[in-house]
């Protein structure tokens, strides 16, 4: 059961901030610009509160949001090689906004759009109409996210989308976490990911092939600290300047059948524990992919503290389809067709290990 209150407050640039508050006074602040996670106030082992999300000092930062702080990413989260794909025999060229790659929905991605807040007894629901041709994608897409915060500290994000013409779709949430609330970087955080394989990337950061994690710096099947793993000699870490790779999450046998689509049941896929604060983040999702990003490009980004962020000051765990999947044999799984409903659920739960 979700028991929480929602309050709203106007901010600059016509942006409204919504606060979800649970019975233990945990608070999640969400902006209607990009349906963006702004702050998540959570207690540490000693009951002391801190904001565990990275973000800009004011609304201005979110108008361009070059770091993609906290936003809902769409219509395509992650990369598409050369911004090209073929759908039902038609070639498409979409926005290229990272060298030759398409990244995170292009120049007018979902994270920059004003979303409409809908009255919903279940939680904070926001919708976005993405017109045919937006960023070069075909079809009018109607996307919706529902944010709920329960008394166990779980923030559940339910995404749905429909379309009037076939289109690739891959939505995700791009929150940057730092479980110590910014007292230090995330190198001492201890990560585990339930995945036997990850996607190795080329110089463009486009996946080349799946590789077994065994014996490599990427093996988080048993919990391991992030910092020392960054120090392991590994070619893939050098290519990406750290972790910026998609894990192939272990799949359950009992898939949930949807019209024309199959999804995984919601299951726990990753945990991150910060020994200093005692905070622990548990990620669960219906998706097959989990992008682990170790904040490799944070240096110099001005956040809410006096000092700008430094490298590895935050991490992202983005549940999604595989990067560039639209150009792989598994492409059909990421195509949404008229009459189908895209559904994705990802939940982040914050707790404390005493």
């Amino acid at each position: 059961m979700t028991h929480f209150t929602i309050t709203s407050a106007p901010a600059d640039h016509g942006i409204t901030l919504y606060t979800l508050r649970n019975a233990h006074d945990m608070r999640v602040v969400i902006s209607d610009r990009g349906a963006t996670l702004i702050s998540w106030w959570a207690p540490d082992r000693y009951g002391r509160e801190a904001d565990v999300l990275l973000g800009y000092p004011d609304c201005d930062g979110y108008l361009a949001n070059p770091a993609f702080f906290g936003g809902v990413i769409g219509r395509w989260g992650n990369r598409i090689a050369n911004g090209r794909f073929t759908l039902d025999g038609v070639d498409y060229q979409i926005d290229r906004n990272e060298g030759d790659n398409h990244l995170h929905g292009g120049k007018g991605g979902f994270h920059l759009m004003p979303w409409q807040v809908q009255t919903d007894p279940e939680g904070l629901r926001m919708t976005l109409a993405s017109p045919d041709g937006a960023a070069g994608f075909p079809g009018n897409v109607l996307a919706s996210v529902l944010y709920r915060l329960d008394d166990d500290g779980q923030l559940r994000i339910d995404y749905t989308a429909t379309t009037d013409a076939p289109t690739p779709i891959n939505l995700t949430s791009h929150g940057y976490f730092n479980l110590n609330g910014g007292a230090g970087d995330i190198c001492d955080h201890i990560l585990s990911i339930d995945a036997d394989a990850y996607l190795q990337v080329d110089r463009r950061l486009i996946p080349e092939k799946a590789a077994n994690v065994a014996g490599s710096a990427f093996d988080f099947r048993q919990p391991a600290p992030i910092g020392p793993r960054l120090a392991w000699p590994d070619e893939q870490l050098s290519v990406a300047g750290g972790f910026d790779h998609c894990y192939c999450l272990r799949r359950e046998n009992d898939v949930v059948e949807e019209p024309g689509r199959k999804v995984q049941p919601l299951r726990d896929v990753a945990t991150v524990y910060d020994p200093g604060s005692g905070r622990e983040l548990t990620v669960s999702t219906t998706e097959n992919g989990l992008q682990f990003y170790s904040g490799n490009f944070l240096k110099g980004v001005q956040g809410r503290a006096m000092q700008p962020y430094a490298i590895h000051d935050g991490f992202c765990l983005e549940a999604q389809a595989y990067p560039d999947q639209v150009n792989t044999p598994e492409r059909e799984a990421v195509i949404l067709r008229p009459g189908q409903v895209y559904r994705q659920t990802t939940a982040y739960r914050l707790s404390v290990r005493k």
Partner: protein
Amino acid sequence: MTRVPTVHRIALLFNGNKIFDRDIIAGIGEYLTSTRASWDLYLEEDFRCRLQGIERWQGHGIIADFDDPATCEALAGVHLPVVAVGGSYADAADYPQAIPYVATDNFKLVKLAYDHLIEAGLQNFACFSLPKADVNRWAQEREKAFEALMQRDGIQGHIYRGVGTSAPSWDTAVEQQIAWVRSLPKPIGIIAVTDARARQLLQACLCAGIAVPEQVALIGIDNDPLARILTRVPLSSVIQGTVEMGRTAAHLLHQMLHGARFADTRILVPPAGINVLASSRHEARNHPHVMQAMHFIRQYACQGIKTEQVADYVGISRSSLEWYFRRELGRSVHDEILRFKLDAAKRLLQQADSNVADIAVSCGFTSVQYMHAVFKRELGCTPREYQEQMAGDAPPAVALSRKKSPAVGAILREHNV
């Protein structure tokens, strides 16, 4: 056709009588199971390290604990790939030269303990170290870390090394420890450089009637289950990242066996966690009667004590004690005793294959039925259900620490030199 992988002969030079070394070996074992790398491991039968003749050993590689300078010297003339494991040093010049080194981050171990004591509300701090010796340079490094933190925060810290442990000097050692603790401002938070050291000090405090954690909040390093079992007040401790150190060392050596060279690679592994138990659960509490009563309850709750006995120990009437408890804690003496028993039972139930009936007895419940009733009332489940819930919900790290060294038994094959 399956290719038979090359078998490498690897020596592990560790002192497996210490939890630190054992967990590193477990990490090496875990790495080997996950990769199916084929290593014939050379280890002494008692898992102790003997260096005689190591330079003539016909093998392919070595992982060794470099905390002991003798190991460092003995391996100086060895031309095989060697990965060193040990404590971190504040001064880069103190590391062995031209050898990859995987270290436990001594500064972060002490800092985690210190941050915890600060959060517990303490303002005075001390460090219980060891007499300076070549074999425990890590203890000096932890002292240095403590000093650096004190200096950073402008606090006058207290460091005591005491004497080495030996049976004939034991009584004197304990007396000196008591004298030292008595001389310190109170309340004080003390970081011991190991759990073994913390256990000695805890025992000294209990002998001298110094309340832990009210007067002295104590935390060790190692999270050694043995030290926990041997203390009446459960000992808080910082957990080292030893398993990850083992995996890292194995990974480096694995690469070196295939030609990679990492002469200048130094990987520092942060602590894996902190196990906060009663010895450091300091709460600013003013009234000495309550403090003394808590001290008594903590030690004897599981032996079936009643409010009468607590009042007797404090030396005031039962009704006065109840009044102080209500005022300071908002609960009765009986509630407090029960809370300790319940906590103890919960801890024991988390251990695999524990028996509910035995736990009821050892936690001072008069019957299994009574423990059932208390669990139902306080937690809404039976002890059995609680046990199952814990077994199912265990976060990965806890699950890992519970089934230590999954692979070691299966992999290790001892050979003679």
